[in-house]
């Protein structure tokens, strides 16, 4: 049988302008005022950037493909090309069936319109005809669980209800090919499970094809029977060995346990992020299980914002997030004092806490509840480290424990006073 999607040498090129323009768009004023400048300097300050290059693959009907890769790897670009939002610069895509893309839940939802009206609107935007929507209407409402609020404007919906309704419409699309980008990042755990279940049902039960981008490796593992790994616009691997491919994505590159560079987001510039020993030495060896280590962030601040915080996310090698920790986790008087200029923020990962294994650490930063500066998973500031050395100080336990953590707790006997 012919593959349902064939992609040949697909590429997408973007023009990046090298000037201090704030956004993607220009203003006429800017353009007019730079005419003299451009007349005199022939050299074009633009650089071509391949967001996606030479990607070739086939997808058979009924396959569920997880697309993984770090931010900027080209995942979203690929989905945009497949769903025809953007036009490819090179290559060709042949699609044999109706594609519905779900790059964001609730695309086109209008806050003033009621739930009922939005179902029709959203359905039409996603490519359903009115008849199809009418037929599916009850099912959609049922899945979302919003019967009582059908005639309420969606601006009065809770965010949970909003997402549920939006996903419900999309899930009942019945396209041959469903393209999904990270919708599961929203909604509560129970609803996420429901969504995954629905997507599984759609593909396994009805033989539909699903392309799924997610940073949630658990979800990818659960849903997909194939994984494609993208890195800087190129396809590194694709296959049905999902577990292994996911691991390779999180696998440590050899080298010291530190990230060095210069990443700026708004008023924050990070220059170094890594682990050092308790004594302050750089580490380029595995961390002993009985060793306290310090995780530090060296950064420059242009201003001190009251809701600013920096945090760290630690992942296991399988991509499971183990914990987050932020500078502002404790009561306000325990927060580190920040100053304009250079700061070194640090905390100690205690000994006898993480089990043997490989870990992956991400830097996060945000203005709490306002904006991410470095968003988890999207952040480019990351490093790997390894923990080694059996389990504990006990003479009995020299091999490693099962499970991700190997904390040491002191036992006593309440009877022996």
């Amino acid at each position, binding site marked *: 049988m*012919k593959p*349902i999607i064939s992609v040949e040498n697909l590429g997408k090129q*973007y023009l990046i302008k090298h000037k201090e323009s704030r956004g*993607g*768009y*220009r*203003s*006429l*004023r800017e*353009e007019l005022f730079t005419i003299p400048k451009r007349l005199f300097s022939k050299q074009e300050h633009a650089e071509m950037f391949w967001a996606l290059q030479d990607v070739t693959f086939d997808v058979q009907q009924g396959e569920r493909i997880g697309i993984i890769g770090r931010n900027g790897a080209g995942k979203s670009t690929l989905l*945009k*090309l497949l*769903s*025809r*939002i*953007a*036009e*490819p*610069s*090179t*290559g*060709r*895509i*042949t*699609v*044999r*069936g*109706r594609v519905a*893309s779900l*790059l*964001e839940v609730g*695309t*086109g939802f*209008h806050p*003033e*319109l009621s739930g009922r*009206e939005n179902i*029709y*609107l959203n359905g*039409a*935007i*996603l*490519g359903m*005809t*009115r008849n199809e929507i009418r037929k599916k209407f009850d099912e959609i409402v049922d899945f979302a669980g919003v019967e009582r609020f059908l005639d309420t*404007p969606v601006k009065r919906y809770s965010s949970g209800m909003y997402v549920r309704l939006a996903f419900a419409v999309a899930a009942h699309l019945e396209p*041959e090919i469903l393209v999904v980008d990270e919708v599961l990042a929203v909604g509560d755990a129970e609803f996420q499970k429901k969504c995954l279940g629905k997507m599984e049902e759609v593909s396994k039960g009805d033989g539909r094809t699903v392309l799924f981008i997610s940073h949630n490796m658990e979800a990818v593992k659960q849903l997909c029977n194939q994984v494609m790994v993208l890195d800087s616009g190129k396809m590194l691997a694709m296959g049905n060995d999902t577990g292994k491919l996911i691991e390779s994505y999180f696998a440590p590159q050899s080298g010291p346990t530190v990230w060095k560079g210069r990443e700026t987001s708004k008023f924050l510039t990070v220059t170094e992020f890594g682990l050092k020993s308790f004594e302050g030495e750089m580490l380029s060896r595995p961390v002993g299980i009985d060793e306290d280590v310090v995780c530090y962030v060296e950064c420059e601040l242009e201003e001190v914002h009251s809701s600013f915080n920096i945090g760290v996310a630690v992942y296991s090698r399988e991509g499971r997030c183990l914990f987050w920790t932020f500078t502002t986790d404790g009561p306000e008087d325990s927060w580190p004092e920040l100053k304009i200029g250079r700061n070194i923020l640090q905390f100690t990962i205690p000994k006898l806490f993480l089990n043997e294994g490989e870990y992956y650490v991400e830097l996060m930063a945000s203005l709490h509840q306002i904006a991410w500066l470095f968003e988890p998973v999207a952040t480019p500031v990351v490093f790997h480290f390894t923990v080694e050395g059996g389990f504990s100080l006990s003479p009995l336990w020299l091999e490693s424990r099962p499970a991700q953590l190997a904390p040491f707790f002191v036992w006593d006997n309440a009877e022996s006073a």
Partner: protein
Amino acid sequence: MSMELTIEAGKTERQYWKDLWNYKELFLILTWRDIVVQYKQTVVGILWAVLRPLLTMLAFTFVFGSVAKLPSEGNVPYALMVYSAMLPWQLFSTALSSASNALVVNANLVSKVYFPRLLVPTATVGVAIVDFLLSMAILGVIMCIYRYLPPIQFFAVIPLALLGSVLALGPGLLLCSLNVTYRDFRYIIPFITQFGLYVSPVGFSSSVVPEKWQALFMCNPMVGVIDGFRWALLGTVEFPVKPLLISVVFATALLVTGVKVFRKTEKTFADVI
């Protein structure tokens, strides 16, 4: 398998016009959405559509009719003469400004789903037409008050209104695509509609324009539409053959240019917006 579609770099033209037809239902729904949203807060929405032409009519009647003492056409009340010109002008200016902003307003749609982008600005013209119909109803009321019976060629307003919409859509598409790349175009649009209002015979009759300026005056494509409206609704002027011809030529030329430019820049919308 239901259909096969090949997306290839730089070869999407043929598919486009087919899609435009395939997405006709989305077009209807987008129009419906814009109308519903506009009139959602019912009292304010409809009141606005009534008040705007009425207040402008009062102001113009006062300034041009009572202060400047310009003559009306025949024995028609000055207010009625102004209002019958307000109708096509408001249709034109609402359609033009909403079409021009359509893509920027719907940026989230454009960057998240595929559909022929031409639908968005075109659908907003639908809202202008609904506004227009409301204003027509008010005209009926005003005519009753003045006990004025419109002439037989009354129904000519339908093609004339269509001409006005097309006349707005052409430059609307042009500005719409420019607006995506250069955001400051949005400041130009109110200027066009403001300026246009004073060079078009809305507050005055075309007959008051001095002979030596007539040729230049008629280059404004809205003159034909507005005089056409006065001919159809009031019967006070001759059927404006020459100005209408100019309007039709302008409308066609602008529409063709508008669509062309729009199509050319459309591919990059998702990248810049």
